[in-house]
Each structure stands twice: as C-alpha cells, then as structure tokens.
C-alpha cells in the first residue's frame, strides 16, 4: 500500500472510515478504533500488514484526525473537498494548516485596531501636558472613546468614584491615599505616564480639599 502520497488516493474521511457528514463524536470514535487497530499487537492485522505498514497507516490516521478532529481545520478541508470548486484544490495537510493560520491572524489584527480617531494636535497636547486635572483626564478618556462604565470594568473602580475624580469632588471620594491609587489606575488605562499624572493631580486635589 502506498502511504507516502495516500492523500490523493484516500481522503481523510476514507482513512478514518467515516462518512463526510459524520458527527464530531463519531469521528473521534472512529479514530480511537483505527488507532487501536493499527498500533500495538492487534491480532486483526496479523498476516495482512507488516509492522512498518501499520506504522505508516497510523501516521496517516493521526494526520487525518488532526484535521477532522478540529472543527476549524475540518471546515476548511470540507470546503475544499466538497465545495463547488472541488477540482484541483490542495488537500495536503500543510496547506490546510496554512489556511487556518490565515483565518486566525486576520481575526487578531482586527481586534488590535485602535477604537478611536487619532488627532495629532491632541496627541501633542497630551505629550506636553504637565498639569493634570480631573477635567483633562475626562478629555483624554473621551478622546480615547472609553465610557465611564468601560473604565470602571477595566480598573475595577466604582464608576461613581471615577466621575468624582473627574469632577475633583472630595465629598464623593474616600481618603487621599485611595484617591491616588485610583488616579494611577485610570492613568495606566489611558496609557499616560502614571507617576507624573498622579503627582500633578494630587497637588491640585489637595488645593481643592483645602478651599
């Protein structure tokens, strides 16, 4: 039996001996049966397959299951095997794997795309800003398109406190040490230099509490 180039002669479904519409658990059962048939000392292959042939079959079985046992890879394989343009499709393992990588890198790139419109002037203003007040933190947050709720979810700070920090309203906020911690958290989330922001903010905040 020629196992080197078996892929064109037998498709993965034929190797595992399941129908193309087999459910996922049937594929797994078939794989387990096939593996027990062609590995070890199964009496069923006695006088039929040599040890080497059985090992080669086992490799094919593993390859078939690594595609059919994985939903994404099986989808790609199915499209190529059964789709309308079924002729001349590359059914090799490498090509299926490559196709699946393309699917996933695209998805990742999408997730990383910035969710806000860049504004060069404002970016410059952020970079050079030395006095940080609640007002300006609010501006940066709105510029980066983050709502108070989202900020609260990320930083685990109650949204009530976030609003109070932006308003610089001491009557709504706990002791000073906690406030500093909140500001550091928010600055981190907004990708600002958190130490400079916290120092400047706390200086202003102390003035507010005095008056």
């Amino acid at each position, binding site marked *: 039996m*020629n196992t080197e180039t078996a892929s064109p002669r037998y498709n993965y479904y034929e190797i595992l*001996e399941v129908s193309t519409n087999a459910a996922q658990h049937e594929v797994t059962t078939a794989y387990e049966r096939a593996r027990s048939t062609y590995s070890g000392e199964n009496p069923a292959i006695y006088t039929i397959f040599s040890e080497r042939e059985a090992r080669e079959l086992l490799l094919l079985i593993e390859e078939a299951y690594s595609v059919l046992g994985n939903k994404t890879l099986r989808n790609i394989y199915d499209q190529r095997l059964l789709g309308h343009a079924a002729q001349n499709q590359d059914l090799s393992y490498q090509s299926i794997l490559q196709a699946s990588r393309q699917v996933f890198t695209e998805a990742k790139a999408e997730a990383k795309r910035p969710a806000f419109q860049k504004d060069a002037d404002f970016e410059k203003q952020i970079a050079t800003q030395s006095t940080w007040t609640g007002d300006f933190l609010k501006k940066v947050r709105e510029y980066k398109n983050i709502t108070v709720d989202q900020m609260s979810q990320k930083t685990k700070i109650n949204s009530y406190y976030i609003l109070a920090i932006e308003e610089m309203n001491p009557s709504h906020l706990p002791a000073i040490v906690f406030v500093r911690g909140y500001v550091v958290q928010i600055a981190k989330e907004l990708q600002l230099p958190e130490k400079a922001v916290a120092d400047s903010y706390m200086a202003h905040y102390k003035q507010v509490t005095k008056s």
Partner: protein
Amino acid sequence: MDLTFHGRNQKTEPQVWVVTSGKGGVGKTFVSTSFALTLSKLGHSVLLVDLDLSGANIHTSLGLKPSHLNIRHYFEGQKALHEITIPTPHPRVSYIQGYWDTWAPADLSPVNTTHLFQDLKSLKYDYIIIDSGLGASEKYLEIFKAADEKIFVTSTEPTSIEKTYRFIENYICYSLKEKTSAESYAGLLKTLRNHRQGLLDQPFSFKSYLKESEGFTLEPFLNLSKQPIRLVVNSVRSHNFATLGYSIKSVCYKYYDLNIDSIGCLDYDNAVWQSINNREHVLLSQPFTPLAGQFLGMCKHLIDPEELRAVV
C-alpha cells in the same frame, strides 16, 4: 409489543442464511442454532440445515437424537426436502439432519448447490439457516455465494483470524473467477502472489487492478460489498477484543477495498459448554445469559437494520 408479527410472514420465499467459518471449533454450529432459536422467539418459522459434510452435529446442539432420515436421502434422490424435515420440541423450529450414516459424502458441485437452493426456496419457512462446513473449499464457497445473508464466525485467536483473511481472499477470487476468462484469472492470481511476496513496485488494490486489467469488470467486485459478509466474533474473553470486529472490518477496507459488516461479538460464557455437556442449548437452559441479548441484537440487525438505528 407484539413480537409474533413481523411482516416477513407474508413473503412466500424464505431467506437463506449461511453460517461458515475459516477454522473449526469457533462456534459455527452454536451460532447457527442460536440464530434459529432467536428467530423463532421473534415469531418466525425457521428450518435449520446441517450441511457440514465432515460430520453433522446440529442435533446434539439442540439436544436431539440423530435421525436416520437425513440429507443423504435428498442427495441420493430418494426423498424430497420436506419429507426429511424433522420437527423439534422448540416452537417454529425444524431441522434437516446432516450426514452421519454414510462414509461417502455427496458431491456438492455447483449444479447440486443450485438445485438445493431452488428446492430450499420453495419451502414454506421465513428463514432457512444452513450450518455450512468450514474452510474455503469450492463447495462451501458456492453455498456461501448463493446465500441471502453470509454469516462468518471467527474467534479472537490469531489462528482463526488468519484463516478469516484467507477465506475472504478465496471468496473474492472465487466470485471473480466465473466472470472472466481462465487467462485473466491466472493473471490475477499471479499478481496477488507477487503482492504477497512484496515483489510489486506499485501498491495493489483490487479496485484499480480490476479497472485497468483486461477481461475484468469492476461490478462483480463492487457487488460483494453490497451484499456484505456479516462478521460475528465469538468467545470474547476480554474487553480488549470487543472492538476486534471493527478492526477486521477496517483491515478489509484498507487492504481489499472490501466492505464487510461487523454485526457483533459474543461474550465467552461458561454456561455454553456446561449446557452442551447436558445436551441442552444455552439459550433454553439459561435464557437470561447475556448471549441471548447479543443474538437478539444481531438478528434484529439482519432482519431490519432500520429498526435498531440509535437516535443520538
């Protein structure tokens, strides 16, 4: 549920099931008598025919005395089949005694076999179960080929499994032989021999060989898969062998391009030899043995596979 009405009764022509094996002692007679008793429990009428020319023993398996009225009379032309049919104490089961009082068994030539099947088909039974002889000799292959259901029994021992494959190879070749010329057939045998010795540079496949070689058509080979051999794995002593039937099926598919049907495995049960020592059938002396359920499942699968289909 009414087990006694199963549709087949209206059909006039009986279904012929042939039970055979590659090796002796794997439980051919046990399987045929058990099928007969199970089918009778399902309400079908059954005729058991003992065609094992090496010595009959269905009567022993059923706990009966051998009869002088036996199949010899049919082959010698003295009696018709219905005249040598012997009723049994079990409802709806009759049997035809095999040879036990002659030392020159009949020649089961293909012509004889054709006649036998014609005569059997004219009898009024739902099922006729033939307990055939073992091995791949031509006379048994001919009976096997003519059967409506071809049941093949193997045990889990390597000796038996090896002979299973030899039988299947012989069966394929025998089925192809009459569809081609002697020359092409000799060519096939030569290629097969080289394949076995590892002398071929190309992988051998029946499908591609029959497609490419002169004098062959693919159809007779494909028909073998349409009326598949039904494999029964007997005396399974360990759960490691519970999937042996599927493994053999898989090997047949990968090596011969042949579909066979693994219809089930039978547990090893001490009750079997204990019962036969008392000249009783285990399904009658111990009707609640797990084997009873296993036979019931197999019979239902063969009678009506749709009925058993699991809903997942």
